[in-house]
């Protein structure tokens, strides 16, 4: 294995540049280094001006998502050696506005995420004296997969629908909505349906399926959206056949 590998890092300074360009750095190719280690090496030893987000370094916080050779990846979980002999192209997450270098603006995602009410909605809270809301392992299993989302937004960077229609609510927000819809303690499914059963919600999805492939936590957002389409269609039929009962 070679001693070094070349990293082509996207650089963009809002004060100086009209559009991003690439800057090449040579970093040690260590077997135990991930792409994030290489970026930190550049930041510490070579060029302190390179800007990127990171935090936990263990695939939990979801901060270090970037495009690595054109694919959305958590850079803390992407080994440099997988790309040997290089070069490795590192870019900010696709379809998001770039703030600086590898940092993207995520407030669009955060706004959409909040819209789907990603919390337990209760019409009526039971008194504390009655104890916890118990769940069977089966009830937990119903939503557990969708609860693994870390909001890294790799699925948005993989989704051409989001790129073409920025109003699309997007995979992670819909999967998280489904996580709460399927939770036996939640009573907010109808409130969420008003947001999700719109063109910009589930019906915007054309089932490209790339979000599921990009997800580092195996959440399967594409599956959750298709399953929710079935739920929404059934709800629509029910409201058509029995308008009073569905209210």
């Amino acid at each position: 294995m070679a001693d070094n590998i070349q990293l082509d890092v996207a650089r963009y300074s809002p004060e100086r540049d009209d559009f991003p360009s690439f800057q090449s750095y040579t970093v040690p190719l260590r077997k135990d280094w991930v792409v994030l280690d290489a970026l930190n090496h550049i930041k510490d030893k070579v060029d302190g001006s390179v800007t990127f987000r990171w935090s936990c370094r263990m695939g939990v916080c979801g901060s270090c998502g970037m495009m690595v050779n054109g694919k959305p990846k958590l850079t803390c979980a992407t080994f440099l050696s997988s790309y040997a002999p290089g070069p490795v192209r590192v870019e900010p997450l696709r379809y998001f506005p770039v703030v600086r270098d590898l940092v993207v603006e995520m407030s669009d995602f955060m706004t959409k995420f909040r819209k789907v009410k990603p919390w337990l909605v209760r019409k009526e809270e039971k008194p504390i004296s009655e104890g916890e809301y118990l769940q069977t392992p089966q009830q937990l299993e119903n939503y557990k997969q969708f609860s693994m989302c870390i909001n890294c937004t790799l699925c948005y960077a993989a989704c051409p629908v989001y790129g073409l229609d920025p109003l699309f609510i997007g995979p992670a927000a819909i999967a998280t909505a489904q996580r709460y819809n399927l939770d036996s303690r939640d009573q907010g499914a109808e409130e969420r349906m008003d947001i999700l059963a719109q063109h910009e919600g589930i019906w915007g999805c054309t089932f490209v399926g790339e979000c599921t492939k990009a997800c580092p936590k195996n959440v399967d957002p594409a599956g959750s959206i298709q399953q929710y389409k079935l739920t929404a269609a059934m709800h629509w039929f029910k409201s058509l056949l029995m308008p009073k009962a569905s209210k």
Partner: protein
Amino acid sequence: MNVPARSAPRHTPYHPRWYRTPVSTYWWMQQWSYFRFVLRELTSLGVAYSCVILLCLIRALSLGPEAYEALQKRLATPMVIMLTVISLLLVLLHTITWFRLSADAMVVRVGGRRIPGFLISASNYVAWLVVSGIVAWLLLR
């Protein structure tokens, strides 16, 4: 309170000069999986073509043997045969891709356990074979 999803993405005042990478018209040619997706969507043209031909055949049948023979002659031209072969390939691709995707889109539980995806796809193929068998029996008996 219901919040409508249709609203423009918000912008914070702190990052006035973001760079937005424009999405190329040819985005679907930049990645094999995107190209495969577009091809899958285009297969619906083959399905539409097959439906139109079927409707034309039914209409010709209702008009009598002469009309049916005239249509058959028109369908036997090299250009139409080529179109029919292409539409058959598109319909087959349409069927196979959607049968495969049905495994991801459907959650079927039996006895509290989720049935593996390949069984859902396999059940589609079995249903396809059974229906094709019934149609073949009706036509060839």
